[in-house]
């Protein structure tokens, strides 16, 4: 059986691609120390900045810089780790990497450093995910949230809720398993009140976690509407003003066009279904329509764009909205209209994509529809599974409150157990025996 200690020593460029002042190549694995020794001509001192030159087999200089050696397990991955900090620049870094590959290291797979750190129990799953989030963060807000999760803030907050739930379970389980004991103060009213408080705090935490998921995973918005409603202008305005990160170069103009923008911290994928007519007979356009339909069913937010001068007011989605989908009706071309005459719909947004009129209001509406609050304080990066777990815990607590009203203690116990298990998915499980231990240390029980 293979073990991780016997696994290959991996190497990769640790800094971003493209020219930069400093570039770092990182190694991890059992062979690292030997490689460091080869370069320095002596054993490396852990956590010490060795100034050194890298020279290839022909004797020519590749780069000069600082070599730092971390002895496992006191390193990021838990294995021996080496970092060479040299000059940035694609070509130099590539040569340094090749030098190390020549010394016996192999190219690391995506995320392999983090994976090793996780396998060597240098971080828990939530933290490992936070590292991945930090690296791929699509916005500054997301990066900050990932950093907070990495420092264990998310786990801390879940732990606090978890402990309150455990305290309630201690009472309820003691009530069931020790009905004859003369347990002082074992009453239901405080349990009901505490459960209500927990419900409120879980709801708040869920909102925060959903925010975290939103800024971590991002969302998808799609622009739809009749031809000439101004979809493309809106698309271009949003893309230009919010600094499109990647522009997808689509095959034909009839295909979908997408950009990624940073909508006040939310990494948003924006899709334009430009130039599509629903009643088209053009086979190529039909394919485009099909794709638009698919994208539509997957989007989190639908922007219905309509020429304000258009008399046809019907906005009907072909399949209706899915539960998680939100829509905003956007009346465009208000600059061509006499404002006084227009009757304004409360939920709709009125813009002129051409001269950027109403764009701030639209952005606010989009953020609101996606459930994003501009207050990012306390935000932690979260995964879909975290959101799911907290939702489940919330369901358990809600059911528990119902059970108290129904006077069913065993169902209350089950609901609280379900809620507890759900939070255990994030933090790790608690055994029944640990639970009993808490009961015995809280109450004097026994014959």
């Amino acid at each position, binding site marked *: *059986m*293979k*073990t*991780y*200690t016997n696994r290959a020593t991996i190497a990769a460029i640790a800094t971003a691609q493209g020219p930069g002042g400093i570039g770092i190549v990182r190694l991890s694995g059992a062979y690292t120390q030997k490689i460091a020794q080869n370069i320095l001509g002596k054993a490396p001192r852990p956590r010490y900045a060795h100034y050194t030159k890298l020279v290839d087999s022909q004797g020519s200089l590749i780069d000069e810089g600082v070599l730092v050696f971390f002895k496992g397990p006191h390193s990021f991955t838990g294995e021996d780790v080496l970092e060479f900090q040299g000059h940035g620049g694609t070509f130099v870094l590539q040569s340094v990497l090749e030098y190390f590959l020549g010394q016996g290291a192999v190219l690391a797979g995506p995320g392999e450093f983090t994976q090793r750190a*996780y*396998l*060597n*129990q240098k971080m*828990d*799953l939530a933290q490992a995910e936070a590292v991945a989030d930090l690296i791929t963060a699509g916005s500054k807000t997301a990066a900050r949230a990932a950093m907070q999760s990495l420092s264990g803030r998310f786990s801390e907050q879940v732990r606090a809720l978890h402990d309150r739930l455990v305290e309630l379970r201690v009472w309820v*389980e003691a009530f*069931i*398993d*020790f*009905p*004859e*004991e*003369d347990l*002082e103060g074992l009453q239901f009213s405080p349990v009901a009140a505490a459960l209500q408080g927990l419900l409120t705090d879980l709801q708040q935490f869920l909102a925060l976690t959903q925010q975290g998921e939103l800024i971590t995973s991002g969302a998808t918005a799609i622009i739809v509407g009749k031809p000439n409603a101004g979809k493309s202008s809106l698309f271009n305005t949003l893309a230009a003003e919010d600094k499109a990160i990647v522009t997808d170069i689509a095959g034909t103009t009839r295909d979908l066009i997408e950009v990624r923008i940073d909508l006040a911290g939310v990494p948003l994928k924006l899709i334009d279904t430009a130039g599509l007519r629903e009643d088209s007979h053009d086979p190529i356009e039909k394919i485009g329509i099909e794709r638009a339909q698919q994208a539509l069913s997957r989007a989190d937010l639908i922007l219905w764009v309509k020429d304000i001068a258009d008399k046809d007011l019907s906005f009907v989605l072909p399949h209706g909205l899915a539960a998680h989908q939100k829509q905003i009706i956007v009346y465009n071309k208000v600059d061509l209209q006499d404002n006084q005459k227009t009757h304004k719909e409360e939920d709709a947004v009125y813009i002129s994509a051409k001269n950027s009129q109403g764009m701030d209001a639209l952005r606010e509406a989009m953020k609101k529809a996606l459930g994003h609050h501009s207050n990012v304080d306390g935000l932690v990066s979260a995964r879909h599974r975290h959101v799911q777990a907290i939702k489940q815990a919330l369901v358990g607590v809600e059911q528990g409150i119902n059970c108290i009203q*129904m*006077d*069913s*203690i*065993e*169902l209350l*116990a*089950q609901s609280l*157990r379900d809620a507890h298990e759900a939070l255990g*998915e994030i933090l*790790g*499980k608690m*055994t*029944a*025996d*640990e*639970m*009993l*231990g808490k*009961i*015995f240390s809280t109450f*004097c*029980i*026994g*014959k």
Partner: protein
Amino acid sequence: MLGKYFDVIVVGGGHAGTEAAHAAARMGAEVLLVTHQIETVGQMSCNPAIGGIGKSHLVKEIDALGGVMGQCADQAGIHYRILNASKGPAVRATRAQADRQLYKQAVQSFILNHERISLFQDSVEDLMIENDCVKGIITNTGVKFFCHSVVLTTGTFLGGVIHIGPTHFQGGRAGDPPSNQLAKRLRALPFRVGRLKTGTPPRLDKRTVRLDELEVQWGENPLPQLSFLKSSMPRPEQVPCYITYTNEKTHEIIRSNLSQSPLFSGNITGRGPRYCPSIEDKIHRFSEKDRHQIFVEPEGLKSVELYPSGISTSLPYAVQEQYIRSIAGFENAKITRPGYAIEYDFFDPRDLRSNLETQYIENLFFAGQINGTTGYEEAAAQGIYAGINATLKAQNKPAFFLRRDEAYLGVLIDDLRTQGAPEPYRMFTSRAEYRLLLREDNADLRLTDRAHEMGLIDKERFKQFSSKRENIAEELLRIKKLVVHPGTEQAVWVEKHLDHQLTKEYHLQELLLRPEINYEKLKGDEKLYPADLCSMVSAQVEAQVKYAGYINRQQEEIERHKKHETTKLPSDFAYDKITALSAEVREKLMQHRPETIGMASRIPGVTPAAISVLLVYLRD
């Protein structure tokens, strides 16, 4: 008998031993039960009660498997309580106070009257072992018996030491010698051995207790049963229990004598149960409590003794007398037997296979307190399980196994194998994650078919069960079909219990789902509650209906977990080579050698992260 080859030899005649022997005999095995004294077979050595929360669930399961405990308890029960009666059926539990003499007689009549059970009175000195496989036993007088399987149920007799104050002496139970030779022999085998302790209270002479000063507690009427079998025997006379309390004076006496308790002087090193602390422990640990409850149990109809539950102790006799007399109603009480603490050897149950066979010696099975459990019911449950498996092994048939979602017995065995016994193990309903499924009322529905397949139950029991099962199915169908229309007599009947009128028609099943409605409230209307509806059936149907939503979700969870439960971990898996696991987790896995990922996940300290590491390795 000499020279005869037995399928199964059971060593010990307590609750584990008798269930093991009787189960094996029911399955057709030739059984030898060896005990140091035939007269004490079936003896209740601690408090005179069977059942209680979590425990009655085990008794009902033993009964469904054709075991003797429930039937004996019903033949000896002199006071019954339904605990948690005001709560739902899943946590309701029956407890019987048993007349010690009647109970022992009932057990002995089962054992002595079975044609395939032979008895031999002697202590067992040694096991005959060849190539790590047990072949038979050797008794104190040098007699050898050969067999296929051995079930050891030696209780607290292995290396037992009794403590009363500063005095201590060897003993397996007050008045009985310990089994030191066997303990020595077993200690030489590669089993991990630990030390546990438990205790009993002083017993009192009933004639010297002022019963009229105590709170009286009468039992249930009508009389419940612990056995599913319709009892043809007349039930014994019912008597009350009593309640009194310790007081500040009692606490003062105990506090000033703490140093004389071997628990505090350091003479006792074995760990005692947290849920069954001695009175000196309670007073020490919960100093803010100004009184502790004492449940005064009758020892039997003809007995002159009382068992004051809740004040077990190992203080010197003189102190026991002093504190007893400080208690209301006990002012003149005479102690008939002093309380004591007993320390004994147990074998780490993590060394057992899932059929309760030891990992190191083939065909050797352990059951009962030897595995670190406490309680008659826990012992009996393991006894029947080990007896069944020892027989199946002898008959060359696949082992009998129960999952955690199938029975408390499954929870018990799995807990022992994954958690070990850091303290004497006692069952609680909170240990069962599928508590709503594992109820007292449906133990027969869960296990009778399995029992029938293995030949554990007779035709009569299966016939009774089958007819009950049919009646349940019919009743379920009836409530699904019966429609209550608004304005009818039935609607008016139901509305008495609702705060509103029915505005549309409902099936009776939908009405029963409401928290305000139950069968009890339907009684009186012939259509809603037919005269021939048996209460066992209605109780079952009610539980199924009321819990339906939760039970369906639990079933889904069970299905999800089944994958982990069936993902096998090789027995030679090199955990020590996996550096991705912490040293602590590695050590735990090396010790336990779990059979499946599911089991590994339940070992304390094995984190979800460690489980994902194991899954990575299994995939590799």
